Each structure stands twice: as C-alpha cells, then as structure tokens.
C-alpha cells in the first residue's frame, strides 16, 4: 500500500499527527476513532461530547457555523457528522457548517475528508440525498476528498444496519421486495480504513471515491442478517409499489423514520459499478465474510462442510467429519467460507456443478479443491463406507444394475440443473 505520509506509529514521533473528527460518537465515527488511535493517530473529537479513544474534545454543533480555531493544530479533518432530523432548517445549517469547515481547512492547508452517501445525487428522491450532493459539490471545489460509502454493516448494530437487524428479528415473514433493490454492503471497519487511508493521501483532493464492495440484493442481505441472528428467514414477495401508500400514511403519523422517501431512495439507489473509483490501495472485505465475526465464521465453515457432504453423498456427516474439514482448512490458512448455504440453495445445486470443465475462476477452483477434500474425508469415515463398498457377500447383479441406473438418473438431472447452478454460484456477490 503506497502511503504518501506514514502513519504516526510508523514515523516513531509522538504528538505529530492529529486527526480531527466530527461525528466521532456515531456508527462510523466510533470505528474510525478506534482504528486511528490504534495506528498512532491522536484523535480530536469535534462535536457534542468526548468519545472513548480521543485525546481531546472541542465543542462543535452542526447548527452553528464553526470558527477557524476549531481546526487549530490539526493535520487532517474527517467530517462524518450529519443531520439526522430531516428538516429543512437543519439541512441548511448542515450545509453552512460543511462549507465553513472546508474553507478553514483549505486556508490552513489541512486535508478534509467528507463522508457523503451512495444516494447523493442532484435529483435524488430523498432530501437527504439532495442535501449530501449539494455539500459534496461545495466541498469538491474546496479540494476536499469525498467518500461515498455503500451500505455500512457490521460491528455494533447502528443506523440502517441496526434497523434491518431489528426488522429481521421481529417480523415473522420478511418482504422480498420486487423489483429487487440492490445494495452495496461494506463492513464498518473497512469504511474506517478507507477514511483513514484517504486522510493520508491529500493529493486525492477534489475527487469522489466509493467505499463499497460488490452488489448484493436486498433479499440476500436480509437472508444474511437472518442467518447471523440465527432466525429462519421466510420471504413473501411484495411489490415495492404496494408499500408506498402505507408508508406514506405511516410517515404522516410516525415522522420521517418510516417514510416513502426512504423506500424510494432504496429502490432508486445509484449503481456503484465495479469500475467506480475506490481509494488507491484500499479494498473492501468480500461478502459475506465482511459481516461475519470469527464465531460465525466457524459456524459458516461447518455449515459449508455439511452442505458439501450432503452434495457429495446425500447423507448427513458426523460432527467429527465437519470439524476435521474446518481443521484442514485452517491448517491451509485459507479458512473462510466460500458461500453461505442459502446462496446456493439445495445441495443438489452444488452437486450439479461440472467437476471437470476448465476454468480460471479462483472461486470455482477453490470450491473444487474443497469438494476433493470432502471426498477424502468422507472416504475415511467408517459409518459412510457402505456408500463406497458393498458389504461382503455373493455377487448381486440386480443391485449393481440399480446403481448404474441411479447414477445415470443423477447425472441427467445434474446436467439439467447445471446452468442454473452455475448462474447461482457466479451471482454470489
């Protein structure tokens, strides 16, 4: 990773690099504060209160225009704070705050990094998106770096992530919105890395970057959250349009939190293409590992093992076999789950993938390696030996013929299923 300025810890000089942070008590703010402090930065919280991990607190309020002294002695400023009320007055004040901040930073030669949103657009359906866009434009002309994170997940549940997690835990049936909205999830720690990385490359000023991974459908996201929360996910297709009216009504009563606007912005989220600019040297975590903690990652591997075993011989594997699978993967130092069970659906889908076709896809090659490992593990399991060998006794032609027919039937259905299986495997984000 090319860094134009070394992190303070690497420089070996204390008291040199100070990072000013607004919104330090927020979802991303806390993660960034932790990360920066662990890399030797001295974090100065600019906001309503002191935050754990920061060395100093300077009062600041989004509703009041900041003074130059707020940024005194800082090397970089990251502006995460945003107005969550959704009212016009607040949006205006927010704009003024950001513009003043940028002006002060530019005058003092400090690098400013602004946290915008994926929904920032001139003609965004939500006021939030429009206001973000306006601030972006102003800040870009002041040579600030603008980062648009995707949908932030992981860590302590907060923001939209927390809301969805709650939804998943409470609703017995989850809505499978049609047409399926796509999201670009990214782990909050990855986002914090992106911000910190940008803060160290001031020459990137005046550009927009994305901090997001690949595209994931809304349904898949809910499935992942349900899996993580250990609740079963049942879906009913719901057309997006049908939700608008009830949400609009609810919005009247319950305020901006459940508004049709939010739904609209979800449905009309601008696409982040794979070629969209990302901070040089930064890469997002892969899905779904990005939202799995170690405990869950172990569980994911065990489930993958059970799935592979079911795909291989159609029988349940003893726990010792599953554990040995995980152990072999950990020894090999490549122990992350290739997929989560719902992504491929039934184990038969997995069994239908062509074992022999030449491919360069690293995920497919890794999957084949794991299938081979599973075959070797199954073969040494005495309880499963009768899948491999007939018990001793006189020859029985009929039994053998039945097996050949069974093989033919299975191969035929595997081939019929193959194109769907390949598509499902490839469409994993």
């Amino acid at each position, binding site marked *: 990773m090319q860094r134009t300025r070394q992190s303070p810890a690497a420089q070996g000089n204390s008291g040199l690099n100070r990072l000013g942070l607004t919104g330090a008590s927020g979802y991303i703010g806390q993660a960034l504060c932790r990360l920066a402090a662990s890399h030797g930065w001295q974090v100065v919280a600019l906001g309503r209160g002191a935050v754990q991990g920061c060395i100093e607190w300077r009062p600041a309020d989004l509703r009041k225009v900041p003074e130059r002294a707020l940024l005194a002695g800082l090397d970089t400023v990251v502006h995460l704070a945003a107005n969550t009320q959704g009212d016009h007055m607040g949006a205006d004040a927010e704009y003024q705050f950001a513009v003043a901040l940028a002006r002060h930073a530019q005058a003092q030669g400090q690098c400013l990094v602004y946290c915008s949103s994926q929904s920032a657009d001139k003609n965004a359906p939500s006021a939030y998106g429009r206001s973000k866009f306006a601030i972006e434009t102003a800040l870009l002309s002041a040579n600030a770096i603008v980062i648009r994170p995707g949908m932030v997940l992981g860590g302590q549940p907060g923001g939209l992530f927390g809301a969805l997690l709650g939804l998943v835990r409470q609703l017995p049936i989850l809505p499978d919105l049609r047409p399926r909205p796509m999201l670009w999830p990214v782990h909050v720690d990855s986002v914090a890395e992106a911000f910190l990385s940008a803060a160290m490359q001031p020459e990137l000023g005046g550009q927009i970057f994305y901090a997001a991974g690949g595209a994931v459908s809304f349904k898949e996201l809910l499935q992942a959250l349900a899996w993580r929360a250990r609740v079963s996910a049942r879906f009913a297709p719901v057309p997006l349009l049908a939700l608008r009216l009830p949400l609009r009504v609810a919005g009247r009563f319950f305020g901006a939190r459940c508004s049709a606007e939010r739904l609209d912005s979800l449905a009309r989220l601008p696409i982040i293409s794979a070629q969209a600019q990302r901070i040089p040297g930064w890469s997002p975590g892969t899905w779904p590992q990005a939202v799995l903690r170690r405990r869950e990652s172990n569980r994911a591997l065990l489930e993958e093992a059970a799935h592979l075993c079911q795909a291989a011989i159609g029988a349940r594997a003893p726990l010792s076999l599953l554990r040995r699978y995980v152990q072999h993967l950990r020894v090999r130092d490549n122990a992350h789950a290739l997929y989560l069970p719902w992504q491929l659906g039934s184990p038969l889908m997995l*069994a239908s993938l*062509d074992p022999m076709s030449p491919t360069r896809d690293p995920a497919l090659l890794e999957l084949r390696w794991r299938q081979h*490992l599973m075959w070797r593990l199954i*073969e040494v399991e*005495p309880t499963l030996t009768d*899948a*491999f060998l*007939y018990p001793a006794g006189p020859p029985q*032609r009929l039994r053998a013929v039945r097996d*050949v027919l069974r093989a033919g039937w299975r191969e035929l259905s595997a081939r019929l299923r193959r194109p769907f299986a390949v598509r499902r495997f490839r469409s994993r984000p």
Partner: protein
Amino acid sequence: MINLQPPSPQPRVVIVGTGPAGTSAALALLERGVRVHLLESGAAFASEAPQGSLLDLRFTSTQQWRWQLGPAAPSVGAGNVSPKLRVPAFRTLFDGYAQLNQIDAGAGFHLTGAIAGGGLSNAWGCGVASFDPDELGALADVAAEMRQSYRRVSQRIGLSGASDDALRDYFGLDQHSAPALPLDRLHTQLWERRTRLRAGLDLGRARLAVRAQASAGRQGCNQCGLCLWGCARGAMWSAAMDLAAICAHPLATVEFGAHVTELEHTGDATLVHVQSAHGTRIIRAQKVLLAAGTIASTRLALAGMKLVNQPIRLQSNPMAAFLLFLPRQFGSTREAASGLAQLSFRLRLQPGAEPCFGNLFSTGAVPMHEFITRMPLSGRAALPLLRSLLPACIVGNVFFAGARSAHEISVNAAGRAQISSRQEPSMREGFQQAHAALSRQFRRLGAWLLPGSFVPGAPGADLHYASTLPIARHPSSRECSLAGQLQGLPGVYLLDGASLPRLPAKAHTLTIMANADRIARGLAVDN
C-alpha cells in the same frame, strides 16, 4: 587443511545414500571386511503403516483418517501422478527433496525423490526383473558377474512370482523366486483366458520383492491390501531393512542427517563436503561410492567435474494408466486382495522395437476418491457408478522404454541442477498405439478398456530416472568404466540408476542393486 578424522586401520569407503544401491554395495563390502561409512541426508524412516486388513478397516476403523489423510492439509487435486505420492506417511519422505538437493525441475517435469534411510524403496511397487544381454548394454561384457549378483541380491531380499508362463525368460528370475502369490477372482479370469491373446501381448505373473513365507523377522504376505500405505508385516522388501542390519555391523558407520553438498577431487583423494546438524565438515576418502539416487548423484558428479551448463540426457519411462472392466464380474463385491501388481504384461507395438511393460492391480489398492475426482460425472452420480463398477475393474499401467523420453539435466555455475523436459511428438503416437493395442488384446480376455480411462502420466512422474552417466566399454569423461568408476572424477564410483547403460521398460531396481553389488565386490577385491 588438518585432517581431523580418527586414524583407521584400513582405508574406509564412503557411500553416499542408503537406498537399494547404497545398501547393496555396503553389504557386499562388509562381507569382505571392508570398512564403510554411509552418509544419509534424511533420518531413519519410521514406518507408520496400518495393520489389519483393508476391507475390515474401511468398515470399522475410526482411525482411518490418520493413515489415509494425515493431520495436515492433504495434497489434494488430480495431478497425473501416482496415488503413492499422496500418502500422508510418505510426506516426510518426499517433502523438501528438490530444495535440499538444489534441483530445479522445469514446469514440464514432475520431480520426486526420497530423503530417508532406505530411499525410494520405502514407497516402491516391489517390481523386479533381470535384464537380458541386449538390455544390459555395456554391462553384457560382465554378464557372468551380473548373473551372480542377481542371484545374491534376489536370495537376500526374497522374491516371489515364479511361474511357468510366457514372461519367464523376460524376467529371468524364477530360479531365485518362490512361487507366485495367489490371484484374486478378477485376475484369475484374465489368467485363465491368456491363451486367447494374439501375438504382441504376453501375460505373466508379476515378479515381486515380496516374501510369500515368513522368514528372518519378516512375515509373509497375507493379501491384506494395505500395500499403498506401507507394509506393517515386513513382507514387502525395502532397503531400510538392510540398513538396520548394516547399522548393527561393527565395521559400518551410518550417519543420518548428513547431507553431501559437494565432491571435490584433489590429486590423491576425494573431498566429500558434508553438511549436518553439527555444521559442515570435509571427509577425505580414497573411494567414494555415489548412490544418492540418479538425479542427486548426477548433480554431485557434474558439479564435481565442473561440467557447467552442459546438459546431458536423463531417461525415464513414459507411462500411462488405464482401467479395465470385466463385464462377467459385474455385480460382485470387493474381496481382499494384494495392493501390488498381480499380473504383468509385455506389449510389442512394432516388431523389432523395444517392448512396453505393464502391470495389473486390483482397484482396492487405490483409494476411491482418486477415481471419483477423475470421472467426468458429478460426484453424486460417480459414487453409485463406481460402487457398482469398481469391484469388476482392474487398474493397469504401462511403461515405455527410457529411450523414448526426452529430458535433460545440467548444472549451473552455482551448483544447482536444472531439469528440462521436451514433449516428444512420437510419444503421443506411442500412447495412442498402446491404447489401441491394449484395448484390442484385453477384449479377447473379456475385459474392456474403459473409454477415457487411458491417461498418460506427467513426464517424470514414474520416478524411474536413470542413465545420465552410463557405464560404457570405452568411457568418455561423462561415462563410467565397467568397474563403475566415473572417468571425469577418479575415485568416485556411480552405483545407482545414473550408471545404468540402458533403461528398458521393465522394472530396473533389481538391476541397479545387482550392479551395485557387482561394483562393490570388484572394489573389495582391489582392496
């Protein structure tokens, strides 16, 4: 240079390597009272071979994973190499060979070697044969001594397979062998129909270095089927057995963990540079016997002779594997059978050309996942198919003469060996012809060669490396004399496959051992 070696009453012979060649020479010298000093890079090989019967263990043992899979991540993936190379117990044998011996194999050459007492014979298929005068090449001049050595070695290690069949003279060992081990049901069918074969393919019982009867601490073979993973009964011969006897001999010194990195010739002696856990040291010796395995020995020799960047030819046996299906036996269950070759065959593709040689094995010898992962079917379909078919199938392999291989080995200025391999265009044709001929002939015996099952092995995967610095009647500097002495490096004798004049398709280990025995006896006489 101060000589720190303790004074010895007689000059000692230094032997590099404790594989079949090294131990045969050591035993011959010890018999005649010559002191020997053996240097082995690895440790004494501790076999963790499973005990019992394969079929019983498959159905009942919960510890199977230990010897079939091992604790670390197994080497998985269908490379076209023998399943032997994936046995976890042999990992210590094979790991780090290329690195330790400073060998860089090119992408097209699959290199394997052993670092342990006993060498590659710890993991071999026990096939034995003697060479006829044509195959002996320059060694035909000393045919009488070779015959004597064949007899000595055969009687020492214990052979079986004697049978009055078409390959009796081809193997030429029946006078020293115990009768053949019993065949299983599938091989019996082929055996009983062998008269139906036409000219071109001759079928015979496999001649193996396996004891049929118990003797001298080794038990006889009981067809338990665990051969691939090592023989706990001691029925399969390995040089480690001889090594144990040598270690106990008063005139022998065996040093493990002593790796020879260089040979240097000075006016009156050879300096052997040895690297061990204690550091590096130099041994002065009048006579050095190189038996470190063809490739390692060749590297030492070329570096010692300072033949830098001059490639010499390296031979190996191109090989292929195939699967035969016997419809008459369809529906039968697996029976206990030896995992080693039961029948062998000689295949003449063209009259006058060097014949090919092959073996037939029970499918029980090979773990099933090797088949599953090679079938072009989804795994769930492959399993019932294989369960029904494999008990009626026989695995075969076929080797071509070494003259058809095209590899080269050279040493660079830093002393590293480089091996490169070319694709011989005539080899592809050879494989096709062999495929067609074997298909035709075996069909007469009621066995179908399954389509798509004839798979050529990766070059070098046969592990039969030989004939780099061959023995010749009038040797040049890159050849050895009939006494085994390397012309370019006086005082150094080449005992292993590197000095074989020719590499035919048949098993060559016994010939290497006989040659080593002959050379050692010649040296003892000189002494």
